[in-house]
């Protein structure tokens, strides 16, 4: 047994922060290929040109999320505006096709003073429209609320 074996004992257990620091220094000293130049390690160029993969993932994620939300809002607005425009155009076209007769029951001849003129497609006369009872008709046997 050599003399060094008396002083160095390999143990399993928690490592302190200082031990980890030394371990990582030793590890990367062997890990980094010796043929790689070291000029870039302290180059100010590194500060200007930030590799995308070293940027924090959270900021990238939030930026993408914000961009996605903005795009979705834009698409939604475009859809709503397009729908409104289509609806307006449809209504205008329908109004143009149907003409003023759709709006009110009047004679196509306008104010002629003749009450025998048909006002609808079913041949309803203007005179007949005057006889339509708008008030509810009474049914025999039923007591109306205002007669109590």
């Amino acid at each position, binding site marked *: 047994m050599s003399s060094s074996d008396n002083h160095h*004992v390999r143990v399993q257990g928690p490592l302190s922060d200082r031990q980890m620091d030394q371990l*990582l220094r030793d590890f990367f000293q062997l890990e980094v290929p010796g043929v790689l130049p070291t000029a870039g390690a302290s180059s100010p160029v590194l500060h200007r040109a930030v590799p995308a993969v070293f940027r924090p*993932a959270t900021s990238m994620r939030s930026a993408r999320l914000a961009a996605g939300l903005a795009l979705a809002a834009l698409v939604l607005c475009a859809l709503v505006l397009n729908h409104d425009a289509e609806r307006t155009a449809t209504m205008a076209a329908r109004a143009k096709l149907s003409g003023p007769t759709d709006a009110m029951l009047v004679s196509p001849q306008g104010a002629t003073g003749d009450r025998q003129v048909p006002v609808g497609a079913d041949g309803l006369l203007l005179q007949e429209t005057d006889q339509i009872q708008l008030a509810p008709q009474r049914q025999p046997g039923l007591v109306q609320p205002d007669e109590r």
Partner: protein
Amino acid sequence: MTSSESAAAGVPARNEEIACFYRENARELWAIFYSMCSDPERAHDAVQEAFVRLYDHQGEPVRDLRAWLLRVGQNWLRDVARRKSSGCSLLPGLDEFTGGAVDPRQTAQLHERQQQVRAALAELNEDDRRVLVMKYSMDWSAAQMGAVMGCTAAAIDMRLSRARRRLAEILVERGYQHEQF
């Protein structure tokens, strides 16, 4: 000067530019690739591959060399991972001892330590691994890392400390033995 002469004169200038860029950035590119694959040889191969393709590049001029090299290297790493070809990777750390009289037991211990730490690093989350790679492979200060990662030096110090602690926990879980005097 004819066009062929000017083209011939442009080649050494371009080669010198690439060589200069290699000297400035190869180590950083290696660190980036290493944080992706946790394999020093493969990361080095990715750097070499990216620069070889840059030398051979005949298409449109490359506007952003760093971005171009990163993309080529990353794609190469993905291809290699997809093929799952381990290739003929060297034992890490052994290059340091070739040609010298080295205690075989010490060499074996070093090799084992490299493997254990590498495996533990691969278990860390991406941010913790990156901050350790930046710190220990490029020897960046907390301020430099903070500028790159978009946070304060104090935050980097905290993250470094947390990453070291987490790595220590993983090493203990994996049965890592360290020397005690």
